[in-house]
């Protein structure tokens, strides 16, 4: 087994991992950084983000307003000190990306342009046409090439964390091409492995978004926080789930049902705004959780269109005209044409809600530290407390930059004063991990992996989807327990070493199942409705007395996780009713 010594190991080379790596290389040049990713960095799912990143720039806007939108958008489950730090640093970190070359869309005078986004009172979303994540990721990847101190381990798969003396001491990774494990010994480790959208069947996520880091930390006793909050994006393509960015609505696109009626006005988001004049926090610019819920309501009323690929409503962009669509939403046009055969210039796009984002994740404090000494977590795999019960679109790309920078700094400071542990016990631990992994490779049961994956995705959609009930969630929990038992008897056909993807899928399926379990159990325990967690049984309202609290899921090997609760940090915004549309204006007066 090859042993590689480094100062800081970063697992994940998406937006957050790359940002952290550059921070260390720039400001702590004496430190070595190992940047580990199971795919080449530019394949990371940050690449798929379309809409943009939030940061206050306009004179008419203010940090307080960004703070308020985020906290009320999160249904008061946000850590308010974290939100404060975030809004103060967002624009600065987006500027940093600009200095590194990110091609943000501009106004005619050469200054940054911003667009409207759901749940945001002012236009503050920086965008690079409709490929914001793509440009951010490539800018960061390319900038990282400037730094020889960053050693990349591309196409290396993290198998497990090595913990000794209650501190993290490194990670064991599998060189995918060689099929050989390596021990990376590190003083501190940053987890930046992204979300877990693939636990659901229909999602906007890439195949690699399988909750690996969440599960790894979870299995080592770090709590997963607020896992019940899963964001459905209201406008995914039917079938594939491919995203039609919220930017479509930010630019003026509207949602209509089968009667051509803009149904959002029936659900407290109206009054109807004139075509082509989107109004912040009204109608189509309401928050995602609400708009996804409206779809479900319309479905119940029979107002949706039933097509080959299931029920849909229409996202209509036609009134924007070809020029604007080509300038602001060229990728959307390309995607709609290729995947549903619709040219949005001439026809409305069929859409439906699909799973998009995991608000919860590895619990960290405001400085991205986890409860496991030396381990930090950032990006979608982490729960730093920014998003609460519902994330506002375009806050998470900024999160990558803001907390990526912070985690880089924190992990570097920690590594500077820490020593490498003696290698012997770490080697032994690593050997055990490798033995366990090999045992999995030699699984010869009769359970088909594809079946388990499919059944998991389906039962999550059914039980912990847009609307939830006690019975539906219980059913999902039982199903997951069954699937976990079956997982022990899977069959892996491919026993080879070189680029064995079947084996990797099997490991990922294990991660997915653990994450799914944490989601379902956290959901059933929350006996209220808040943000994206909406119940239609007796707990259909928010209950601040008992549940103005974060849920914490603790892993219990073969038993159900234990769910505990912790307080929410409230600094200046007391919980109030969450209102949009006309009601929000009345409230302001």
């Amino acid at each position, binding site marked *: 087994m090859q042993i590689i010594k480094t100062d800081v190991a970063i697992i994940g080379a998406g937006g957050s991992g790359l940002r952290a790596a550059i921070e260390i290389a720039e400001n702590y040049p004496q430190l070595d950084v190992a940047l580990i990713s199971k795919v080449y960095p530019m394949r990371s799912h940050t690449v798929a983000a379309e809409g943009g990143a939030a940061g206050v720039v306009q004179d008419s806007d203010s940090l307080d307003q960004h703070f308020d939108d985020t906290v009320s958008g999160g249904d008061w489950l946000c850590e308010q000190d974290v939100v404060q730090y975030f809004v103060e640093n967002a624009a600065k970190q987006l500027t940093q990306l600009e200095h590194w070359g990110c091609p943000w869309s501009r106004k005619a005078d050469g200054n940054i342009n911003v667009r409207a986004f759901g749940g945001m009172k002012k236009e503050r979303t920086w965008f690079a046409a409709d490929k914001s994540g793509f440009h951010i990721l490539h800018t960061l990847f390319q900038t990282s090439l400037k730094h020889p101190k960053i050693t990349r381990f591309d196409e290396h798969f993290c198998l497990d964390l090595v913990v000794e003396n209650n501190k993290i001491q490194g990670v064991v990774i599998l060189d995918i091409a060689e099929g050989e494990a390596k021990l990376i010994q590190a003083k501190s480790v940053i987890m930046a492995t992204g979300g877990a959208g693939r636990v659901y069947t229909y999602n906007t996520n*890439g195949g690699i978004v399988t909750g690996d880091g969440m599960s790894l930390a979870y299995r080592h006793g770090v709590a997963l926080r607020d896992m019940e909050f899963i964001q459905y994006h209201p406008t995914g393509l039917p079938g594939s789930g491919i995203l039609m960015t919220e930017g479509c609505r930010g630019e003026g696109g509207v949602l209509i049902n089968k009667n051509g009626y803009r149904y959002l006005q029936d659900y407290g988001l109206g009054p109807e705004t004139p075509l082509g004049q989107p109004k912040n926090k009204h109608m189509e610019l309401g928050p995602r959780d609400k708009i996804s819920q409206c779809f479900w309501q319309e479905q119940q009323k029979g107002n949706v269109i039933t097509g080959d690929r299931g029920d849909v409503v229409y996202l209509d962009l036609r009134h924007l005209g070809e020029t604007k669509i080509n300038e602001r939403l060229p990728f959307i046009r390309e995607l709609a044409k290729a995947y549903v055969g619709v040219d949005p210039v001439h026809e409305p796009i069929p859409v439906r809600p699909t799973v998009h984002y995991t608000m919860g994740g590895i619990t960290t404090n405001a400085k991205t530290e986890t409860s496991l000494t030396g381990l930090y977590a950032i990006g979608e795999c982490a729960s730093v407390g920014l998003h609460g019960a519902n994330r506002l679109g375009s806050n998470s790309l900024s999160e990558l930059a803001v907390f990526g920078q912070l985690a880089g700094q924190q992990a570097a400071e920690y590594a500077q004063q820490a020593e490498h542990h003696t290698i012997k016990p770490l080697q032994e631990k690593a050997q055990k991990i490798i033995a366990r992994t090999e045992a999995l490779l030699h699984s010869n049961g009769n359970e088909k992996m594809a079946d388990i994956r499919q059944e998991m995705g389906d039962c999550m959609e059914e039980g912990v989807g847009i609307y939830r009930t006690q019975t539906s969630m219980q059913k999902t929990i039982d199903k997951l327990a069954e699937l976990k038992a079956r997982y022990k008897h899977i069959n892996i056909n491919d026993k080879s070493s*070189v680029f064995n993807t079947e084996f990797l899928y099997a490991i990922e399926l294990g991660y997915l199942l653990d994450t799914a379990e944490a989601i379902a159990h956290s959901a059933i325990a929350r006996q209220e409705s808040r943000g994206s967690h909406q119940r239609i049984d007796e707990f259909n309202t928010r209950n601040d007395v008992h549940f103005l609290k974060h849920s914490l899921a603790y892993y219990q090997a073969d038993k159900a996780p234990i769910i505990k609760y912790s307080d929410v940090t409230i600094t200046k915004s007391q919980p109030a009713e969450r209102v949009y549309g006309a009601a929000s204006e009345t409230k302001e007066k």
Partner: protein
Amino acid sequence: MTDKTIEIEILRYRPEQDEKPFPQQFEVPYHPDMSILEALQYIKDHLDSTVSFRWSCRMAICGSCGLMVNNIPKLGCKAFLRDYYPQKVKLEALANFPIERDLIVVMDDFIKKLEEIKPYIIPESDDKCLSEGTYKQTPEQMEKYAKFSMCINCGLCYSACPQYGLDKNFTGPAALALLARYNRDSRDAGSAERMKIVNQEQGVWSCTFVGYCSVVCPKGVDPAAAIQLLKVESSKDYLIGMFKPD
């Protein structure tokens, strides 16, 4: 559901078992919406789990899934069965790259080439301070490099380039397009450094203007144009060099 099926032939290669690649046939249920990638996933889930290929985003933006479809480089997630049915579809790993296994190629050389061309802003003087805000860059100035910044690093253009096939030292289309992207960015002052790479034999002058790279590029990057523009710059460099004594 229809009962229609389509025949798919995959060039298999398993380094631990095979001396050289061999074709294997599969029969897959046909659906007009189905992408080549989905067909491969069907094969892996239901017919032969050892078939290996890269993928992730399945929306033509991560650049993982390049392969040869009937000898033409394509993204598996953006090529659809409807464009081939009822003919058989032949899949093979991207041409000009060594095959690691099945449809997976060794990308090392491609990545190395991206790394070598200094693909980052090299600022004029000392770093501009963050408190000074962003650089100004008008939409016109952006337009100068916008196209060349759209590359998803899928490698299709290297597969399409016979010059790269014949000489692996050629820097190649995507890397040169990326180089042009930074040279043409108003915020950058690193052109002189990068022109050293451009002017080399393996730089732009290995290109004989076949032009196929731009045809196969799924993102409209037009690397052939980038290279021709760099040739003009390189010639200017050469002429100026002739008249400059030193």
